[in-house]
């Protein structure tokens, strides 16, 4: 398991790093307890809706810092609509790949970029705060990577059922007892969903 030269370059000499004064929008995702936290700042042209400047801060590993560096490069100069299409897979490809166990670290940077764009749109009346529901839960689960293979748990059909009623999220997972990543995945699901004020209780059922 080794990092590509591109990962090392972006990690050792990251682009767009640092706090931005008076940003038009910002977002912070992740938590120190999980080992990584990213903040993304945006400066957006009010007329063209182009990202004129972007920067990030990262408490995280080499993979996390390198992804934040390259994804901010990719977003700079793009319109918000264009930048919305940037995914963690694009960032990973641009970095010449990541070891599977490290893919989950790259998702956070992509996620934070999307949250910053979303915050801009909400703050500038371009969209409403989305209602929390099954669709939001599914979007969050798409950000959870199964470390063995570096794919998300929805794509890998590890989620059998998603339910949301009266503040309670119910998720049935198809991850066997002997799977070494079972606890990590369940813990990560909780961390992703707990940040939503609509979520009062999370029940994860495992075989």
């Amino acid at each position, binding site marked *: 398991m080794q990092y590509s030269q591109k990962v090392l370059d972006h990690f050792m000499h990251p682009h767009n790093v640092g706090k931005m004064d008076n940003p038009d929008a910002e977002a912070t995702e992740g938590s120190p307890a*999980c080992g990584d936290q990213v903040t993304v700042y945006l400066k957006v042209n009010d007329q063209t809706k182009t990202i004129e400047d972007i920067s990030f*801060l990262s*408490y995280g*590993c080499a993979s996390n810092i390198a992804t934040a560096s390259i994804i901010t490069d990719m977003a700079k100069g793009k319109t918000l609509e264009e930048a919305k299409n940037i995914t963690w897979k694009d960032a990973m490809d641009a970095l010449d790949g990541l070891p599977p166990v490290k893919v989950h670290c790259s998702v956070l940077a992509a996620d934070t970029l999307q949250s910053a764009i979303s915050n801009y749109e909400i703050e500038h009346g371009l969209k409403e705060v989305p209602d929390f529901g099954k669709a939001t839960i599914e979007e969050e689960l798409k950000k959870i990577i199964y470390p063995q293979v570096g794919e998300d748990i929805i794509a890998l059909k590890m989620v059998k059922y998603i339910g949301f009623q009266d503040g309670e999220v119910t998720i049935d997972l198809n991850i066997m007892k002997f799977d*070494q990543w079972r606890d*990590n995945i369940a813990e990560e699901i909780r961390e992703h969903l707990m940040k939503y004020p609509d979520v009062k209780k999370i029940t994860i059922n495992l075989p």
Partner: protein
Amino acid sequence: MQPGRIYLDNCVTTCPAPEVLAAMQPYLQEKFWFPGTFISTGESTNEMISRSQQLIADTLGAKPNEIHFTSGGTLANNIAIKGLANAYKQQGRHIIVSVVDYPDLLTNAAYLEKNGFEVTYLSSDSEGFISLEELKNAIRKDTILFMTTYVNHTVGTIQPLSEIKAILDSADHKIYFHLDAGQGYGKVPLKVNELGIDTMSISAHKIHGPQGIGALYQKTGTKLAQLIHGVKRVDNLQTGGLGIALIAGFAQAAELVCSDFERNTAYLRELSNYLLEKLEKEIPFVELNGPRGEKRAPHNINVSIDFIEGEAITMMLDQKGITVATGSACASEGLKANYILMAMGKTHIQSHGSMKFTISRYTTKAELDETVQALAKITQELRNRSPLYLAMNKEK
């Protein structure tokens, strides 16, 4: 050793000493024979093995026939733990271990737990010492085995073996005492006859010996149920072939580190004190994990560096030719925070930012100077990227 690289991960493995390689050489070439009787080739190997057993036994206060060669510390731990449990299961099925023990002990305990044994896990205090009070209370009529790790592999805590032994002896029946001394051998005083140990594991590559060879101490009269079955070549407990040259190398390494034990360990202590002092002086927000001073093994310094993450630090140091270890979840195979630090009550952030430096007889002060200098620069660079550091500065 790779020229120019500073290697500070000696608790994982050490660079073989030149004297060790020289001692192994004849047994890799002209004297490659397995032991045997009556014929000169086999007898020559017998003689070397006996000499090696004698030498290692002398360093431990043991008898030569109490030393069994194994293919490493993990094998020695397996043969001893499963061997003791199965040999004495008629007398009871209760085992005591602690949450801060080496993975060999914990995985064996978990295996036994699934196979009809009951295990009590003692907790740790904030410095990595196991709770002696809990040990006293954990002992039952059916307790047959207590096992522990002499020197903690993460924070260097030296468990108080004499006090532990006194508690075990206060029981009204025999409780067997297995010790993992992988990190302790050659670093802290270790005489099995004085400590009253029943079985113990040690490993050559932790003391500048070759990788792939260890030893199991089995006190005379202690029974071990056979774990590995097969042809007896070198030893009756680990059957099958064992590297003859590795045994010669192990004995040489043991002689090297134990013949001048006081001076060797004083050097390690001096260096680790120097490193800690420099780290604390030159890098702000650094906190020592584990005990300070004589209750800590002389080769281990473990600190948490606040606001930044350990995998990034180790990667940057690696790029500068410096090898160290971290307890960050991001650097672990299982993506979990270091279980020792968590059991000591440290936070996730302290574990993710923990850095372990383990030094050896070949480490120099100049290397430590270079390491701290590089680390100070890296720390500042990563803190400048860190939202946590920024938030702390804002609060101030």
